[in-house]
């Protein structure tokens, strides 16, 4: 449990740092240090906050609730040890709903400012959720189909990649692809969103915090990084072979998370941010992949191939 908490506090900002460093190396420059998101976080804690005259109470407490909700959702996901801090059979909906709670309060806070920029960001952000939730549910469903419903950490840990069984490889790769796309969308990375240009018209997540300042902003950035890390953890647990020792699990987890960060950085360096209409179509990919995996599993179970 201590290990989980420790990684939960340390890794998310490091994850963002690795993405930025990868982008810098790919561009041919030195780039900010790996701990730069941490420095930004600490700096923001020293700032004061400015609250808009148009906004009400939601704007003030939304980031606190959002971060707490994401944090509690992360408590159900294993972060480097064999089991998560909490867990019960069927806890998946609680995790999904806590993430939805975080998103909902941030969207309400964005609309609270009465700014049309933030309205646009809020409407796009929440529209993406509409397609990701069924995808996540179907992914959990396909894992449950393969071996029964379990706590969310066990579900992913149980279905490890066994290179001698082509089915487990296919399931793992496709599910990881779907989850990776969800990671990119939730973490507001290219090609769905662009955290670097800071232009209002291209933004989805960044523009939602256009009016947020000081510690509130720090909390929002941390919550976003933690959300990304939750998906990264779930994908890494696919790679952990069954029956490995605690140290081995931790090492593979760290390796998996960091390689996902590097992969996300590479994707950001190689692709532009797509048009919003194209993005809306792309966001259906996790859903179709999940359905495909489920169909393949069903047919395999029926004795098809």
């Amino acid at each position, binding site marked *: 449990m201590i290990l989980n908490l420790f990684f939960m506090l340390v890794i998310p900002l490091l994850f963002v740092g690795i993405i930025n460093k990868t982008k*810098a190396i790919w561009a041919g*420059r*030195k780039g900010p240090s790996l701990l*730069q998101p941490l420095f930004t976080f600490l*700096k923001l804690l020293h*700032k004061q906050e400015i609250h808009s005259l148009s906004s009400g109470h939601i704007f003030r407490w939304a980031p606190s609730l959002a971060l707490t909700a994401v944090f509690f959702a992360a408590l159900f996901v294993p972060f480097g040890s064999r089991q998560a801090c909490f867990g019960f059979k069927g806890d998946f909906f609680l995790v999904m709903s806590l993430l939805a709670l975080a998103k909902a309060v941030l969207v309400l806070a964005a609309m609270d400012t009465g700014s049309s920029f933030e309205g646009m960001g809020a409407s796009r952000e929440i529209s993406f959720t509409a397609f990701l939730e069924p995808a996540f549910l179907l992914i959990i469903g396909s894992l449950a189909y393969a071996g029964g419903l379990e706590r969310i950490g066990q579900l992913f840990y149980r279905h490890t990649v066994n290179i001698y069984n082509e089915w487990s490889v296919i399931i793992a790769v496709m599910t990881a692809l779907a989850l990776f796309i969800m990671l990119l969308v939730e973490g507001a990375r290219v090609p769905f969103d662009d955290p670097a240009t800071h232009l209002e018209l291209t933004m989805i997540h960044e523009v939602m*915090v256009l009016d947020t300042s*000081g510690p509130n902003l720090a909390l929002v950035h941390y919550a976003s990084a933690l959300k990304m890390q939750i998906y990264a953890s779930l994908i890494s647990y696919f790679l952990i072979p069954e029956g490995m020792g605690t140290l081995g699990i931790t090492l593979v987890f760290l390796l998996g998370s960091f390689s996902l960060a590097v992969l996300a950085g590479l994707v950001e360096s190689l692709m532009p941010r797509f048009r919003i209409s194209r993005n809306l179509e792309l966001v259906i990919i996790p859903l179709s992949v999940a359905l495909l995996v489920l169909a393949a599993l069903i047919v395999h179970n029926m004795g098809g191939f």
Partner: protein
Amino acid sequence: MFELLKARLAHGYQAIPDPLRARIHPSFPGVPVFLRAHEADFSAAAALCPTQAIEGFSLDFGKCVFCGACQRNFPETFAFSPEFRMASDSRNGLVVQWDPAKQASSRPSVCPSSVLQQGFSRSFALRNVSAAGCNACELELGAASNVNFDMGRYGLEVVASPRHADALILTGPVSANMAFALEETWLAIPEPKVLILCGACAISGGLFAEEGALDRSWLTGQSAALFIPGCPAHPLSIIHGLMSLLGRVD
């Protein structure tokens, strides 16, 4: 995909290893120095100077547009050293005086800001307001974040929203139409914050100082923390100025 990889390999690694201690080309017009206190040269150059930067035995390189007329006409008296460390934390620091005792001219210096105490040295966000200039300083500020100069490695970044910023970096002479926007942007930045003036136009109005279209009334009431001269300000000057303000230059 392969085109991308080929392009990337062709790029190589283009970052300047240490922008704070870089060696710049000797012809770069940096901090002006006086070689001798020749009164006739000074009064003739004062008449030549397009922005009236030369007065008596001093040169205000906050007004200087680095045209080089004084150096070209009076090479024994005026020279522009290739010194890009030009920033100063006070307006007076930008005035080069002839010091009779030392038989040399003064140099600018920056002492670290007291407003920005701990926490900002590693992460500093700037919000650029482009106030009706020629855009050269904006381009140079943008170049400071590019592959060569890469001020991001020090944690300096330019952000879009003033709410996320720690400093307002002004470029351009501030026309009447931009006066409201400038003040609004300043008020939108949360404390602690500093004002940075970048370029001759921002510091003194530059070539447009006598124009009737300027409205610098708000600026005269503010005390800026950093003045980065130049026309346009060189990215190395900008980076060095900012790092000195944050106390990271020894």
